[in-house]
């Protein structure tokens, strides 16, 4: 957690510095009023100051620290224990990115179905038939609900769905 805290604070510091650096290309004052650079510049300054406080606090913090509670979520969610599948958040993120890459090739409904299948087999590999049926149902529901029901122009694949 401490390393992540330091990395997060450093990232914020970088974002603040980049904002100040980029705002140099814009006008600070424009026709007797603040220009487009005014607000981003001062936001960058404030972010650097805030990030510096967080960085110092993270560096000074003892190495072993319990996980903090989430501000708008119950703290129990990060309690130690066995998650649903090893590295499940990382796998779900990776499958989502893969679905994004596949959308222009196979269409949104099929890409969503493939994502569903991959995640289901990750979380419950033994329930093969249920996983396959759920994935097929996802393709059908996404097509029917969004494309035909709500008229959202989702990218479709070569097979027309």
């Amino acid at each position, binding site marked *: 957690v401490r390393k992540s805290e330091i990395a997060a604070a450093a990232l914020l510091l970088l974002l603040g510095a980049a904002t100040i650096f980029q705002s140099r290309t814009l006008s600070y004052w424009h026709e007797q009023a*603040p220009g487009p650079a005014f607000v981003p510049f001062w936001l960058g300054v404030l972010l650097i100051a805030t990030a510096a406080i967080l960085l110092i606090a993270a560096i000074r913090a003892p190495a072993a620290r319990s996980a903090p509670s989430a501000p*708008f979520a119950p703290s129990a969610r990060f309690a130690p224990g066995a998650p*649903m599948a090893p590295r499940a958040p990382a796998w779900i993120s990776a499958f989502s990115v893969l679905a994004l890459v596949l959308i222009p090739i196979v269409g949104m409904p099929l890409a969503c179905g493939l994502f569903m299948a991959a995640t289901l087999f990750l979380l419950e590999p033994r329930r093969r038939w249920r996983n396959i049926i759920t994935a097929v149902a996802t393709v059908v529901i996404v097509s029917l609900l969004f494309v035909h029901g709500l008229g959202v122009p989702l990218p479709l694949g070569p097979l027309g769905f």
Partner: protein
Amino acid sequence: VSDLWSHLQTGFAVAATPVNLLLALGGAFAGTFIGALPGIGSTSGVALLLPLTFGLDPTSAIILLAGVYYGSMYGGTITSVLINTPGESATIVTTLDGYQMAQQGRAGAALGIATIGSFIAGTAGTLGLMVLAPTLARAAMRFGPPEYFALTLLGLAMLVGLGTGSRVKALASALVGLILATVGVDVMTGRPRFTFGYIDLLSGFDFLPVSIALFGFSEILVVAATPADRLTPQPVSLGIRDALPTRADWHASRAPIARGTVIGFLIGTLPGAGATIATFASYFVEKKVSRHPERFGHGAIEGVAGPEAANNAASAGSLVPLLTLGLPGGTTTAVLVGAFTMWGLRPGPMLFEQNPSFVWGLIVSMYIGNVMLVVLNIVLLPLFLRAMRMPQAILLPSIVVLCIVGAFAANNRLWDVGLMLVCGVAGYWMKKLDYSPAALVAALVLGPLAENSFRQALQISDGRLAVFVDRPIAGVLMACVALVALAPIARSIITRRSDRR
């Protein structure tokens, strides 16, 4: 009074149409269902269902989403009581005594009193909204750019200052949101800012993919990282009769429900405060006034009744700053501010003048929705218990699919899906490290209003910063900002001094 009566008639004419009644029922049902799912709360529900409202007119859309909002307050109680996992941050306090009651075999009484308390508080809160909002909106009509800037600053300061996590991290989150809000074409000069030549960035960061990411996708990653046993409820069988409180339960809960309603509504009306703080305040008060405070934490029904009334009254109260000033009262209303903009409406005092059928249709639908919810929660309790047992393996990827399609539907472009995924992973780490996604989204939504008001105010005053303090309303609001910002510092100095003694 005659004005109020005619407004109510307008509201009934809008809300009581068959389509809007169905949408209110659908929203209330979906909200309770979403609230009953461990880990998914009202904000996630509203963000995820927002793309489904694209084909609807704004009034029908807000009736649906408002149903989801207050419905999830009812539903969130079910997981708090039965599996000690709040389905919603506003029901965290309910776990303290609600779960203990369930352990003692009184889950039905806890859920029943929570439903009845929520109904009373929700209805009274809507009445308060109906009376207070038009008055406040009339007062806000006199606001100019300096007042609007001061007001948005106050909203953000309160969101940062009154949050339940680290204030410095909440401030950092808000600053990131404000910086992201500066991306795109600068409205006052027409020049692109921080777009790096990308056409997709010209319109800035759309709030919808970011909201879906921070409240939907990242929530799924959080749940996926949660130990499975924490999310699996013990088999509980409850019938309709179990959810009806006894006379003794009702006698013990009457006063806590009344106090919770007042506390919840008042705290809910503060921009940025939200329902979570209201529930903590109500619990604290109940424990203080109780003759047997030692019973709290061991299954005291007052510890369920008060906070449950408070969270529903607060959700009605949080619509006061939203409808009258355009400021979010909490996390869910921050998403609603963005939704208003998406529907082409500007939340604020003019809404009452320009869109009376929208505002009064919403208010009346809340009365109707509360009646629907009390029936739904008692009659369909066994069904919601089954919803809790829905396999996480199916639920989680289904919500991710909804996130992907919803992010695309915002502007019909894949760029937003990519943005949603990046922000979702960032949101996961934000939650893990105690940063505030709510402050980020609120800042992203309020950022353009704050910046434009700030620059316009300086333009009309020839660059004089004193314009923010020498106008009476702006001055009072800026004093409140200073108070909110300095209060935690003063508190920590006082605590340190008393510790030294």
